[in-house]
């Protein structure tokens, strides 16, 4: 997911605002950084096409709102960063503490739990000896 600077700002705006049309967004950003209504309209349109904003028509104008909330977006972004750099489903360029994609079942995890407990028991026996 590759976003321009204005797109990021507009998206952040919608995470704080429930819904707004192009004029309201323009009014907000005009004070901060200037720009024309056309620029805002095309930015909103691009974000809609990227699936990051949803919209519905009210009268003559579109009302936009965030299609994904902040938490969901961050989750998606982490996923995207990884997938952009994977060979198949592996080899992330992120170095994760624990891979979430591993297919360990409950039984295997219990086995590992037991291994840890055995190790602790052995260490305590050695310490007592």
């Amino acid at each position, binding site marked *: 997911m590759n976003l321009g600077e204005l797109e990021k700002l507009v998206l952040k705006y919608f995470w704080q605002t429930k819904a707004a049309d192009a004029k309201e967004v323009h009014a907000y950003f005009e004070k901060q950084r200037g720009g024309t209504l056309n620029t805002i309209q095309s930015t909103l349109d691009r974000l809609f096409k990227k699936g990051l904003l949803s919209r519905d028509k009210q009268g003559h104008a579109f009302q936009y709102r965030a299609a994904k909330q902040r938490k*969901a977006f961050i989750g998606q972004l982490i996923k995207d*960063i990884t997938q952009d750099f994977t*060979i198949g489903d*592996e080899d992330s360029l992120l170095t*994760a*503490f*624990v891979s979430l994609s591993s297919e360990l079942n409950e039984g295997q995890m219990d086995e590992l739990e037991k291994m840890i407990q055995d*190790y602790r028991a052995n260490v305590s026996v050695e310490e007592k000896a």
Partner: protein
Amino acid sequence: MIVGELAILLNLLSIMALGVLLIIGSVSLWVKVVHSKTKKTYLSVYSASSRRRILWLLALSPWLVGLLAASLAILSGTRVFAIVTSDIFELFHWHHPQAFTFNSWHGLSLGFALSCASFLVIQNVKRLLVNRHQIKWLQSLSKPDQNNIYLLDAEVPTAFTAGYYQPQCYMTSALRKELTLEEYTIIQLHENAHAKRADPLKKWFFQLLTSFYPLGASRQLNQAMSLAMEQCADATVSKVVIDKSKIAATLLKIKRLSVGPFMSILDSGPIEDNTVCYFGSDQSVSSGIASDSLSSDNLSDRIRYLLNDDQKNTVPLLLVVSVVIALSLFCAMSADLFHHAIEYSLAH
């Protein structure tokens, strides 16, 4: 036809390309046949840091051998070396080095090699730039805590290190709220170890080098490197947290947190408010090189390695250097032999 110094350079590149191809073929075969067929894990007898070095050597070996072979070929043509070691360098009979024809098998193979190399480098650099842009965006959505771990407001419990020039450690709020202070410290030390070693950048460079290999071999090498990097970071933590079982228990706890509710959401397909993401480096798919054949998962390998107090072997450096030099000599000497073999087969 090109005659002169440029022709010498192009001929040297041909020799180098030949060396690169030969080593890529040999290593791929070694990875595929020796490890996949026998299901044995020769590299698992080595320590994680030794495995890392071996894997780097495997990734770099085509270029090292190619460069050495080309260097030997050019040195064989100089007067100084002819005087000093005339007998040895007589072996490198270099066929018409000052002439290069583009519409020969030399030209075609060099063109093919350069095209492939350019494509792969451009593709990987492009990905790097896109990824860098996304990481910047991710960083702008996070806030560093007092230990400089960037906290992300997300519902998937995970921690990772990302970034190339100044890698940063990230942790999600969902994970942070589940951790005790000790567990948090373990994760912090682990991620800091990755950041200090610039592992994300090294991973990218390793992927770039291994992208020249066939997909199967490249995947296995990358999986093995991922595992070795994680084990090295675990080993760094174990220098501070003496009780290794605490590190292992933290690994397992996070694994348990990440499955269950999160995996069930994942399995249920696209959801409008899908907060679940999962990423990378699952070594479960027969990572023949680095993983223990009995274990089926990256996490199992890490926990077993962590709790295993046996000293692992270190790399036999002398042997490795000897192999690289021997291969380079072979490539340099066989350049002319290969040349004659090709021309003989084309002429008949």
